[in-house]
Every structure is written in structure tokens, then in C-alpha cells.
């Protein structure tokens, strides 16, 4: 058995080198298919990041009337936190707000002077409310509009990014659909080319297969070198695709950072974090595709 495994591996490497051009074509096709899939993965990751970032910016700020005391604010904060749709409620006291205001306008002496002239802190205590989902804001706004609550509120500000989010969702969903269609077409073409390349490889060995059968080699042994060869194809193609992808990410990184600006998204970091999940899955699919093509192609010569 050990002799068989060692020989199957030896035969597989021999075939790989003897048909080096065919091997290179097969690997190139696989690399292109893997790259196209990763373009889809990257686009999806970028659009998700943008949507998430915009969603994070959505909130409701409410400002209390000056006569409202701290105990009433605390009660109101607890009441809001009890609403299931509310993710968090942050209290910004008027003192803190003033400090932040001064910090923000430290280089604008006119504004600071005007503030001094007012003498009293003109700002109000505020709560910043964030919902679990952008769809939940309507319910929260409904609660805030109740009369008992409106009696406490001086004014409220809802920074509605819903339209932007909807637009981004729409665009990213379109991008995903187009990329998916392109990838599917590419994967289908790849399947055909890979299947054909493996068939040609096996066809060139039909005499050897016929002699193997004649002298009593088992079907398993006859198949083994071709299966091992498909593992070699898979390892090489994933390896080359990884090197190329990281080189491409390195090259487009600065442009992408410039384009995404405030979103702080790094593709290399994203791939590093999900390396085994992305490439593991891709390797498994490529291996499966190769093994199936190989089994179907060899089976033809094993009949009878």
C-alpha cells in the first residue's frame, strides 16, 4: 500500500512536469477564476464597510429644557434604554458640551469672545440615542413625540441618513449582482476549461491507463495519480492567486484609502483577518472541482 501511495505521488509529479504547458494553462485558468471571485469578495467587503459606517452616524439628539433637573434626565434616560429598539443612550451634559464646543472652536476667537459675553452656559443637557437598526428610528421618534416627553424636550435633531443608506444598499446590491453574474460566467467557463484540460491530460495517458488495466492495476491506483495531480493544480493556483492578490492590494491600497477616506478600510487587513476562511473555502471548491473533473474524465477509460 505504501509503495502504491509513493508511486502514485511520483507518477503525479512526473505527469505534471512532462505536460508542463498543459499544467500551466490549467493553473492559469484556475488563478483567473480565483481572482475574479476575490474581486467580488473585495467589493462586497468595501460596500459593507461603507454601509456600516454610514449607519453608525445615524442618531437622534434631544436637548432638554433648562428647567429640567438631573433626576428627570436620568429617569428619561432609563425610560429610553428600556425601549427594545434602542441600542444606546449617551448623556452629554451642558458642561461637557460647552467644553467640546470650546475645544472645537479654539482657533476662532470671535466665537469664544461671544461665548464669554453670554456669561451663562447657553447650551442644554442632551441625550444621543442610537437604535439597533436604522429601521427602528421611526418607533423611537414616535415615543419621543408623546406629549409627556415633549414637555421635557426643548428640541430634537434626527440626522436622517436613511436615504444615503438606501442608495448605498441599492448600489452595493447591484454591484454584488453584477459581480456575481460575471463570476458565475467565469466559473462556468473555468469549469469547462479545467475539465477539458484535465481530459486532455488524461487522454495523453490513455495508453498507460490501458496497460495499467491490462496488467491488473486497481482502478483506485489508476485514478490516484490524476487526483494527486489535481491537488497539485489546486495548491499552485491558490498559492499564485494569494501572491497576486496581496500584490494588487498593496498597489491599489493608497488609491483605495484615498477613495474611502474616512471609512478607514484596509483590504490587506480584511484579508489577513479572514485569510483561512476565504482561501480555505476557495481551496476546497477548487479541489472539489478538479477532483470531480478528474474522476469523470478517468472513468471513461476505466470501463470494461
Amino acid at each position, binding site marked *: 500500500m505504501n509503495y502504491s501511495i509513493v508511486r502514485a505521488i511520483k507518477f503525479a509529479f512526473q505527469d505534471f512536469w512532462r505536460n508542463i504547458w498543459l499544467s500551466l494553462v490549467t493553473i492559469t485558468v484556475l488563478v483567473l477564476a480565483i481572482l475574479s471571485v476575490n474581486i467580488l469578495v473585495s467589493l462586497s467587503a468595501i460596500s459593507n464597510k461603507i454601509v456600516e459606517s454610514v449607519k453608525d452616524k445615524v442618531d437622534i439628539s434631544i436637548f432638554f429644557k433648562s428647567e429640567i433637573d438631573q433626576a428627570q434626565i436620568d429617569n428619561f434616560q432609563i425610560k429610553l434604554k428600556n425601549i427594545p429598539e434602542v441600542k444606546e443612550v449617551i448623556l452629554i451634559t451642558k458642561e461637557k458640551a460647552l467644553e467640546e464646543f470650546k475645544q472645537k472652536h479654539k482657533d476662532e476667537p470671535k466665537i469664544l469672545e461671544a461665548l464669554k459675553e453670554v456669561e451663562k452656559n447657553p447650551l442644554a443637557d442632551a441625550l444621543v440615542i442610537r437604535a439597533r437598526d436604522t429601521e427602528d428610528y421611526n418607533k423611537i421618534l414616535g415615543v419621543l413625540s408623546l406629549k409627556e416627553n415633549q414637555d421635557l424636550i426643548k428640541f430634537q435633531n434626527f440626522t436622517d441618513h436613511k436615504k444615503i443608506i438606501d442608495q448605498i444598499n441599492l448600489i452595493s446590491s447591484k454591484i454584488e449582482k453584477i459581480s456575481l453574474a460575471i463570476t458565475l460566467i467565469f466559473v462556468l467557463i473555468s469549469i469547462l476549461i479545467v475539465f477539458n484540460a484535465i481530459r486532455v491530460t488524461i487522454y495523453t495517458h490513455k495508453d498507460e491507463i490501458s496497460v495499467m488495466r491490462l*496488467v491488473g492495476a486497481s482502478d483506485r491506483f489508476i485514478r490516484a495519480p490524476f487526483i494527486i495531480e489535481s491537488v497539485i493544480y489546486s495548491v499552485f493556483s491558490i498559492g499564485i492567486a494569494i501572491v497576486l492578490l496581496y500584490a494588487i492590494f498593496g498597489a491599489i491600497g493608497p488609491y483605495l484609502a484615498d477613495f474611502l477616506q474616512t471609512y478607514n478600510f484596509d483590504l490587506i487587513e480584511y484579508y489577513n483577518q479572514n485569510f483561512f476562511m476565504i482561501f480555505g473555502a476557495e481551496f476546497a471548491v477548487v479541489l472539489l472541482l478538479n477532483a470531480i473533473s478528474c474522476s469523470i474524465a478517468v472513468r471513461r477509460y476505466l470501463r470494461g
Partner: protein
Amino acid sequence: MIKFRNVTKYYPPDTYAVKGINLHIRQGDFVSIIGESGSGKTTLIKLLTAEEKISDGHILLGGWDISNIYNREIPILRRQIGVIFQDFKLLKQKTIFENIAFALEVCGSPSSKIKTIVPQILKVVNLYHKAERYPTQLSGGEQQRVAIARALIHRPKILVADEPTGNLDFANTREIIDLLKKINELGTTVLLVTHDREVVNLLKKRVVLLERGEMVSDEKVGRYVI
């Protein structure tokens, strides 16, 4: 040794390649199976080596009924039956040594065994001195001797020769027939499929005649009478 019991091979809708063959071949026999093209000679051999499935009847090899053989058992059967063909079926990119060693390699034999056995078998067929040559560098007769060496490498009890002299001139034909007789004298059962009149008459061995898939005669010491 080999028993064909009412063996039939049928291709739908209405073609019988062989029909109702009853034949008993004993160990050490040398049997020539003769007949015109399409008489069922090669089909009979393909049924014996499980290249084709039997439609009806039984083939017994020793005590083993191979009529309904499982796919996984076919390699075991083929190691017990050496087969040679008119076109030799040698691998052109391998040397003579490698061609013979290949038959052992693919069946999982250890390298040490291969290094010992291959030179021995090359000496039997008198090609030891040409071990490193390629098939295209040998004559037809020599190539057939390599094929015989490969067929004998698993020490089979049966050697099947399907038109082994079809591509050879008279001198090479005699050489191959002498070699087959020598192998037979050493105890191997030989089944020779041929329509070469000279060969059959020269052998003076048992002759089975097939006509349109049916066995019409079985002579202990036969001649080519078609």
C-alpha cells in the same frame, strides 16, 4: 483449469458474438482458437479477462466463477492471466526495463523485488542485453517478446495470446511460437487466438474452431481446416 459452460455474449437487438460455448481447458494445455474474422475468438478472450460481461452461462477459473465478477476483483483476475496482443501495447516513452517494471510498479510491488525479477524475465525472453533500449529501437519480434515478458511478470497460470504473430514476418513468427511452446512446457496454460494457418499446423496442438460465435469443432491435435 478453465471451464466455459454454455457461455453466450449477446448484443441487443439480435447479435450473438458467442453462443452456447462449452469448453474445458486443463492446466498445461496449449489451445489454439481459430476462426474467421467475426467468429467470436476475441470476444471469448475478452469474456475470460472480464473486459466484457457475460450475457449468459458461466466461466470458471480454478474454482472461481468469474461470470458475475465484481469490479474490485478484476485486477486480481488480470494478474492471473497474462495477455499479449498483435500491437504489443508497449509504452514508447519507457525503456524495455521500465515497460516490464511498470507492470509490477502499478500493482504495488516493492522496488527490491522489481530489481530482482525484471532482469530474470528479460533473460527468459533473451532481451537482457537490450534492457535500456526503447520499443521503437527493437524489431517486431523483439517487441512481442517484451510484451510476453510483461505478461509473465506476475507468474500467471494462463497466457492468452491474441493474434500475437499478426504483425510479424515468418522468422519472427517462429521465434514467438517457439517461445510460447517453451512457456507452455514450463507449465503455463497457453490460449492462442489466431487465423494464421502456418502457425496452427506447425504447432500440432489442440485446436478449437469457432464459426459465427459457435464452437464447431475441438480437435486434440488439430490442423487449420477452414
